[in-house]
């Protein structure tokens, strides 16, 4: 062989080795898992929501993988991106997730703002999406509850419509003048409108005073005095726990002693911690399963798994005997979403979007942690019903908070 030939051979061997090194060891290895993805508020002031989703998703995936995965493939959380509840960042993150064609199914972002920002993008993409926390009804039913749902969006969250129906049922039967305070976000505005309409529908004589506030406002005197001047017999707040604490303290300073009702934010840690002993007597609506003396079997299973993995942390709360109700909506729904999506893939024996969606729509009485039994149909993509919610009253003795169901 000439020197030139030897050089060519050496170059060929080197190039071949380099090429082989760049190739994956097994060409199909990247596709051997079932991949899931989400963007949520993993850091920032609302990270209890995003971190809750991650915990729920991870627990469910671990359990599925222990059982052998889905149709012989392991399950993998391929994308878990942080949007800090900022809609723009959620859009960027979701674009990246959707560019990964191997993602078989997705979890919607935490909160209505980011979810509304990406929902059209998700619908156009067509892959199945499960919503765990965002409450705005148009996320599932863009043209109203009587119109068809988005074909690939399924929801386990506490929908504003259902929550409004539950709270309005209680308020309309007891009070004629209702003061509605709501945050100025899409969630707050929609929630207050729906509650107002539902109260009016239940009691036409009821008068409603509606006042908005900005998240993180440090003083609510103006809103409270307006409700007081209108003669409100009860105050209903649609908003987050930290703001509710400001409102409750402000009520005490202004000597406003009327009953206080709230949406699910009323039984979250920021309210319990921020308002101190003033939380006593506050009533709020949230999911029922976690508040029952004898929770459903699926709820018990989830709680055991959570306890084993994370112990009694911020999401569980400081009572080892009983988790916080808010854990159902921050962690429980994410756990249920993954179970539903993977169960649909098993039933369909496929990871194609159309097959998964068809299997999801055939779901009947699926036992879940946050909702006792989940059923979907082509027309019904929202799992929660009024019967899945309860109205709780808060009591506090020393440092111990006790929640009692006052309206099932």
């Amino acid at each position: 062989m000439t020197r030139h030939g030897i050089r060519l051979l050496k170059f060929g061997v080197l190039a071949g080795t380099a090429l082989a090194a760049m190739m994956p060891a097994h060409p199909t290895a990247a596709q051997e898992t079932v991949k899931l993805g989400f963007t949520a508020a993993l850091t920032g002031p609302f990270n209890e929501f995003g971190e809750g989703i991650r915990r729920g998703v991870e627990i469910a995936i671990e359990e599925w993988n222990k059982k052998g995965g889905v149709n012989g493939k392991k399950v993998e959380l391929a994308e878990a991106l942080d949007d800090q509840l900022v809609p723009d960042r959620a859009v960027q993150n979701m674009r990246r997730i959707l560019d990964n064609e191997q993602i078989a199914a997705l979890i919607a972002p935490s909160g209505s703002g980011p979810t509304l920002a990406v929902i059209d993008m998700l619908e156009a993409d067509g892959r199945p999406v499960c919503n765990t926390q965002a409450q705005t009804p148009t996320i599932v039913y863009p043209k109203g509850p009587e119109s068809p749902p988005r074909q690939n969006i399924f929801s386990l969250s506490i929908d504003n419509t259902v929550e409004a129906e539950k709270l309005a049922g209680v308020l309309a039967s007891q009070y004629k003048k209702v003061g509605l305070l709501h945050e100025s976000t899409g969630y707050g505005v929609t929630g207050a409108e729906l509650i107002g309409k539902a109260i009016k529908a239940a009691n036409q004589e009821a008068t409603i005073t509606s006042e908005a506030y900005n998240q993180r406002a440090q003083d609510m005197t103006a809103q409270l005095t307006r409700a007081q001047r209108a003669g409100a017999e009860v105050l209903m707040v649609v908003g987050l726990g930290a703001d509710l604490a400001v409102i409750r303290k402000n009520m005490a300073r202004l000597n406003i002693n009327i009953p206080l009702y709230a949406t699910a934010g009323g039984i979250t840690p920021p309210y319990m911690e921020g308002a101190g002993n003033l939380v006593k007597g506050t009533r709020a609506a949230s999911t029922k399963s976690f508040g029952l003396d004898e929770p459903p079997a699926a709820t018990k299973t989830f709680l055991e798994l959570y306890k084993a993995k994370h112990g009694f942390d911020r999401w569980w709360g400081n009572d080892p005997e009983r988790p916080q109700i808010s854990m159902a909506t921050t962690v429980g729904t994410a756990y249920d979403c993954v179970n539903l999506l993977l169960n649909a893939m098993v039933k369909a024996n496929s990871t194609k979007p159309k097959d998964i969606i068809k299997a999801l729509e055939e779901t009947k009485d699926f036992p879940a942690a946050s909702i006792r039994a989940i059923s979907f149909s082509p027309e019904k993509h929202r799992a929660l019903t009024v019967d899945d919610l309860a109205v709780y009253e808060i009591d506090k003795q020393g440092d111990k908070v006790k929640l009692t169901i006052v309206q099932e």
Partner: protein
Amino acid sequence: MTTFLSLVLAGVSVGAVYALVALGLNVTFWTTKTLNFGHGSLMMFCAMLMVYFASQGLVLALAAVLSLLVIAAFGIFIERFTVRPALKTNNSMGWVVSTLGFGIVLQGVAAKLFGSQAVAFPSILFDSEDFVTIFGLHVSLQYLVVLGLSVFLVVVLEAFLRLTRWGQAVRAVSHDPELGRVNGMPVNAIIVGSFVLSALLGGAAGLLVSQIGGTVDPAFGFNLVLFGFVAAVVGGMGSSVGALVGGIALGVLSKLIGGYVASAAEQPVAFAILMLMLALRPNGLLAQAEATKA
């Protein structure tokens, strides 16, 4: 009438906090003609630090003093590393970015150290249920304490500036630092002192307003600085009494408009006042017009 008085009282109390913030901004404006855009983060950090110290078992008063000392140290840091380098170049506006940057970094540090969730802030002197009855009106003691402390701090600062040698030195430096240097004044020490004082005022405002809200989180403070800035401009940039008058006027007006017109108008009205004041009386209510030598 009760509604009116409740709104006025809340406005005066919240406005007094705006005045403290405005005063904190004024102090550095006197000595360096700069504003600390990270002032809101100092308010937040002081409040979060106090919650942390209290959670470690310290009595509240000691926790408050310790957190204020840390904030005072931040004042030195801000002057040394964010403002002084920027002022070495004539007409540089670099301090706007560097002080704002410092504030953002401090937010991140607070989120890392204390978590990004809102944490409960303890009632320092009174609870929100504590009140006195004055002419039949239910008056919150928390509001009274906030008001009393804010007015006290403004009066002390004004007295310091007018009646003490150091105060006169600060005023001299605010007029002409170069002349002060020629006359042997410790100009650098006075400037550093003004940043320490500004940070302490910010910290005190943070502690007072957190008590009203009941919670504090790393994003706390930014809105308050905006209102403090409006109060400072309305009262007259650089005037202590102006800051108090501007802050209280802003607080009362926004509460009255929120209570009688629309609660959503409460914030926009502040900025409408700012624009109006800049258009009609750019020097503010109480600041003297600046004379320029030919």
